[in-house]
């Protein structure tokens, strides 16, 4: 789930079955403090990270993206009857 863009992560979360999201959450959760402390020693620029570091950083971003359904106890990866994420365009400007 190390996806490089916010749009990909947002869509992935809402399209992923809650059991898989929980498995992902449970796998990353015990290491997230170590991951963040590691990144806080590096320059403050995700685009300057080497590919393996960038993959880990994107994984941590996905952990943040995937948190709400787990913490709020949803039965799905998305809110039932809400505006589709797929209709959001993510622009750089």
């Amino acid at each position: 789930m190390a996806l490089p863009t916010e749009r990909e992560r947002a869509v992935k979360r809402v399209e992923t079955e809650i059991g898989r999201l929980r498995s992902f959450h449970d796998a990353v959760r015990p290491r997230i403090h170590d991951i963040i402390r590691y990144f806080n020693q590096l320059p403050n620029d995700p685009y300057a990270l080497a590919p393996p570091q960038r993959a880990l950083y994107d994984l941590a971003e996905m952990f943040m993206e995937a948190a709400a359904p787990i913490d709020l106890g949803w039965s799905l990866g998305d809110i039932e009857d809400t505006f589709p994420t797929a209709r959001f365009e993510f622009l750089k400007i």
Partner: protein
Amino acid sequence: MREWLGPLYDQYGGYFQSHELQVTNRIMLESNWHLGVNSFTEGYNTLYLHRNAARDYQGGKTNPEWHRPYLELVGRHHRFSAPGNPDHQILPVEAIAIQYGRKQLPAFDFDSSMLPPGVNPSRFDKWGFDNVSLFPNFVMLNGNHWHAEMWFWPLDERRTMIVNRAYTYKPKNLGERLSQAYFRSRGRDVLREDLNTLEAQQAMLSSGALPEIVLSRQETCLKHHYRVMEAMLRQN
């Protein structure tokens, strides 16, 4: 600009410069632009609409109906404050995001000490954020450490292009960027719940089944929006 903004003109010094753009979202909506603006023109909907995405971000034990603590009509514009919830339950990952960054929606730090006079203008002690509408089609949500800017551009009478820009404090390390990613996701879920009602509203209003809608005191700013519009149309 000074004439258009009136007393709002010089109340936000340094506030916007302290933030940087995180993401811009563009959304095409099958709805009249007024309905988009109006969905941010009152606050009592939040108690019901955001029950899933942000169930306890406003109000609290002393304000269970989530009443607005401050509301001001400013020329053609208006603004009001949303009450933060001092009893908000911090969720597990939210706590991690707060540990490595700053509180943003749905948690608020209730610290207005560094804000210019236009943000939390009443200095409400349990302040969450402000909603500022600049007539006709621009809405800002202004919080501590973040703000959002929304444009509602009419394409025709039943289609609107929404441009939403999310800004936050400038992160000083990658941990703060990850913290911001958490709050950005939570904010997107809240926005999606707001947008979700608009196309249904368009369909219902277009049916003509309801010739009139009676607005409540909670909807004073809605009345103001339409009063200003009607006055301008009469003037022209």
